[in-house]
C-alpha cells in the first residue's frame, strides 16, 4: 500500500482474468470492429475453452479479430449486438440457430448499457418505433410524442480495454477505441480492465480520467515488452 493510502487494484495475468469469467456468464466486451477490444483477455478466454457465453458488445468484429475469435471458438451462445455484418461466421451461426442473436440499434444499445450502470430502469427512445425493434415493447407517451421503453442491460463481467491505467484503476481511452468501454465499466458485477500501459497514481490528471478507478475491480498486467 502506498503511503498516501490509495487503494491499489490487483494486477492479473490475462489467464487469471479469464478464470473470473464463468461458463454461462453474461459478458460485456468493449470495442467497435475490434478497435478498443481487450484482446489479451479474449485470447485467454479462448485458450481456457469458455462456453455458453451471452456476449453484449457492439459487434462481433471479423473472424480472427477480437470478439470474432470467441465466435469462431464456439464460445458464444447468445449475442446482444448492433451489427454482425462484418462477421459471416456469426451470420451463419445465427441462421443455423447455433447462436441466438438479438440485434439492437447502436444508440439504444449504448444507452441500455449506460442505464444498467447508472441505476436507471431503461431508456426512452424513439429509435425503432414502428419497426421490428418495437415488437412486444412498452410505448410511453411524453409531450405528445411516443417513446419505446428499452430495458437496462447488466452483465456478470465486463472486459474493457484502455490506453492507460494507473495503480488505482483509473482509466484513459484513446480516440475511437473508447466507444463502449466506459459504459460497460459501469454495468457489470465484476469489471476487468486491460490497459496498454500502467502508470503511477497521479500521472493521470483528474480532468482527463474517463473511468474512475472505483469502478474497476481488476487490472490486467502490462503487456510484455517486445
Amino acid at each position: 500500500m502506498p503511503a498516501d493510502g490509495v487503494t491499489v487494484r490487483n494486477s492479473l495475468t490475462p489467464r487469471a482474468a479469464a478464470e473470473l469469467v464463468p461458463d454461462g456468464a453474461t459478458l460485456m466486451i468493449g470495442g467497435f470492429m475490434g478497435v478498443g477490444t481487450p484482446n489479451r483477455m479474449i485470447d485467454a478466454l479462448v485458450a481456457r475453452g469458455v462456453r455458453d457465453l451471452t456476449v453484449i458488445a457492439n459487434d462481433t468484429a471479423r473472424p480472427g479479430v477480437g470478439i470474432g475469435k470467441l465466435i469462431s471458438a464456439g464460445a458464444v451462445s447468445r449475442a446482444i449486438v448492433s451489427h454482425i455484418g462484418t462477421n459471416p461466421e456469426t451470420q451463419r451461426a445465427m441462421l443455423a440457430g447455433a447462436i441466438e442473436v438479438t440485434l439492437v440499434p447502436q444508440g439504444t444499445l449504448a444507452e441500455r448499457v449506460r442505464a444498467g450502470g447508472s441505476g436507471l430502469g431503461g431508456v426512452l427512445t424513439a429509435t425503432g418505433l414502428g419497426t421490428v425493434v418495437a415488437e412486444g415493447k412498452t410505448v410511453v407517451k411524453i409531450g405528445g410524442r411516443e417513446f419505446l421503453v428499452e430495458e437496462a442491460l447488466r452483465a456478470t463481467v465486463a472486459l474493457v480495454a484502455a490506453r492507460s491505467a494507473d495503480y488505482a484503476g483509473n482509466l484513459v481511452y484513446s480516440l475511437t477505441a473508447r466507444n463502449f468501454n466506459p459504459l460497460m465499466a459501469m454495468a457489470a458485477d465484476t469489471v476487468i480492465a486491460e490497459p496498454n500501459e500502467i502508470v503511477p497514481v497521479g500521472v493521470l490528471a483528474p480532468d482527463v480520467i474517463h473511468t474512475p478507478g472505483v469502478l474497476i475491480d481488476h487490472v490486467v498486467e502490462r503487456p510484455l515488452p517486445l
Partner: protein
Amino acid sequence: MDFRDRIARRVARELQDNTLVNLGIGLPTLVARCVPPGLRVYFQSENGIIGFGARPPEGMEDIHLTDAGGAFVSALPGAAAFDSAMSFALIRGGHLDMTVLGGLQVDRHGRLANWMIPGQLIPGMGGAMDLVGGARRVIVAMTHTQKGTPKIVPDLTLPATSLRPATLIVTEMAVIEPGPDGLILRERAPGVSIDAVRRATAADLLVAGDIPEMEF
C-alpha cells in the same frame, strides 16, 4: 468517373458550410473525398469522433483510430473523441445536420430499408435506425436498381429502418425528394430520360415541369 463516384459527388453538393455530417459505411464514405473547396464540414464517425480525416500516411496508422467501417483514418486539428453514448446523443439529439446512408429499398413515402434481408443477409442495423431518426437531413445514396430490379418501390418488402422518410434520394439515375404526396423527381442523370427513370422505379414518381440534369 464510375457511377459510385457520380452519386457521391452529387450528394456532396448537398453539404452545407459549418455542419456536422455522418457518412454510412460503403458508398456514402466516398462523399468525404468530394467536399467542395472552402466548405467547412465536420465528419462524425459513430464509433466516437468528430473531425476525422483522410487515411494516414503508410506506416503511421493508429490502431485506435478508425472510421465506423473499421478503416484507418486520421484526425484533423480540433477533432474531439467521445464514447458511444455521447456519439448517439449527438445523433439522436438533433445535433447532426446530415447523414448519408446506403439503401436496400425506399418506399413511396421515402422510407428506407437498409439493414436486413430476412433469411438471407442480416448485417444488423448498427447505427442506421438512430441516424435516420435523429439527423436533420437524411440522404439515401444508392444504386437505382439491384441488378435491374427497382429498389424504389411502392411498399417496403424488407424491414424498415425507420418510419421517418428520407430527405433526399440520390442514385446514379436521378435525384428524388419524398414529399407529402409522394416521390418527386427533381433531377435526372445527364442523357437519362424521365421515362427511363420511371421504368427503373417501381413506385410512382411525381413529375412537374422541366426536370434538370444532375450536376456532379
